[in-house]
């Protein structure tokens, strides 16, 4: 999908009408533009109806079908993938055209069937689609205005930021600092308590639950052994990976704070 953005689809639409030259090269250039402009087959139909100043409730199906197919032929030459969706509507148009040419089926008894305009369904779809086009325009202008209104920046921490503010390298740095300190101090240590990763996870969860957040360095300092330190490190990684906590730094090389992540209720993690 091309990202070429235009401000006003109707303006570009009418400007485009003038672009139509019998010249083959000009035509090709045209189509580059066209594909950007018509969001789909209904959009193209609406454009044709507007261009021909046709009453949408009384579409001359034969004429419109012909024009529609003309456009399609050119589009197909250049971009078959786009034409795919367009073909469905082409088929509908041809179906309606044939239905209008044929006399009503005499075997059908219901009165409704005799009086119903075969174009009615398409007209309804077009009208509905046009409303959504207007709605899209409304969203566009609202978005523009809203983007011009700034809200105050976050304070030191940013809970809204879904990303982990502190990287794994920051965590590693703290880990190393503590490890170095530990090496110089813990020589007469007897390794007795064999904590599991599960217990460590529970311990950290409990610590965070107590105060809402906790300074990562302090948790590391609680560790009695190197094994404990490594467990703590792994536990933090696990909690971040599982999205249970956020690691936040107030400034570069600052203290890393672990905070319980409040999952936005309305925004589940993608792909889950």
């Amino acid at each position, binding site marked *: *999908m*091309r*990202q070429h*953005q*235009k401000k006003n*689809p109707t303006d570009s639409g009418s400007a485009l009408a003038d672009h139509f030259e019998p010249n083959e090269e000009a035509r090709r250039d045209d189509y580059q533009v066209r594909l950007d402009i018509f*969001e*789909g*087959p*209904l*959009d193209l139909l609406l454009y044709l109806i507007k261009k021909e100043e046709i009453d949408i409730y009384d579409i001359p199906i034969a004429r419109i079908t012909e024009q529609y197919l003309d456009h399609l032929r050119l589009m197909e030459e250049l971009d078959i993938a786009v034409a*795919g*969706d367009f073909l*469905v*509507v082409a088929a509908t148009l041809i179906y309606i055209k044939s239905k209008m040419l044929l006399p009503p089926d005499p075997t059908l008894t219901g009165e409704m069937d005799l009086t119903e305009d075969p174009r009615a369904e398409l007209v309804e*779809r077009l*009208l*509905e*689609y*046009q*409303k*959504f*086009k*207007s*709605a*899209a*325009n*409304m*969203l*566009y202008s*609202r*978005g523009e*205005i*809203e*983007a*011009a*209104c*700034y*809200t*105050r920046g*976050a*304070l*030191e921490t*940013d*809970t*809204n930021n879904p990303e982990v503010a502190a990287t794994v390298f920051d965590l590693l740095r703290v880990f190393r600092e503590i490890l170095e300190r530990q090496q110089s101090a813990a020589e007469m240590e007897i390794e007795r308590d064999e904590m599991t990763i599960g217990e460590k996870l529970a311990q950290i969860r409990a610590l965070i639950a107590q105060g*809402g957040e906790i300074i990562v360095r302090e948790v590391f300092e609680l560790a009695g052994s190197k094994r404990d330190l490594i467990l703590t490190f792994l536990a933090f990684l696990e909690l971040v990976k599982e999205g249970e906590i956020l690691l936040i730094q107030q400034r570069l090389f600052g203290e890393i704070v672990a905070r319980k992540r409040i999952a*936005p209720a*309305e*925004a*589940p993690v*993608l792909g889950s």
Partner: protein
Amino acid sequence: MQEAEPDGEITATRAELKPAIEALLFVAEEPLPVKQFCKVLGGVDEGEVTAALAELQNEYEERGGGLDIREIAGGWRFSTRAQFHEFVRKYLKTRPSARLSLPALETLAVIAYKQPITIPEILEIRGVTSSSAIKTLLERRLIVTKGRKETVGRPMLYGTSKEFLIHFGLRDLSDLPSMEDFADLAQG
């Protein structure tokens, strides 16, 4: 600002109510719901908070300053007035974020008005495949999945998010103009 959270025992006096609300609005990082004001202010009545907010809003309006108070996405927040965006942008050295493409906007409009809706249903309305638009909208968190539809193939249902309300400055979904309002435009 790592001080202890204010505990529930502190209650705002009547005189404090409005200025306290203003202070909270100032520090809040996202739209603050009335309920949260009540809680922080020590069980103040919701009606009183709403009245005070409306009063504040009026004051800011009348003053015609650079800020206003608005109700957005189920909460209240301060924001700068749109007319000063050029200065703010210059100061912050930010560029406006990438605009949504027209297919994305159209898809979003369909989802907003028809939610929860499946991809085939969107195709039915737009007459064109919307998968890349859906992807963009999901990435920008403007839409979220809303479970699955209990029909053949159990297709995923999509709806708009809180982010959508914030992005388009809407109080809630009922704040969207009615679909009927577009009817007249459609005739033109």
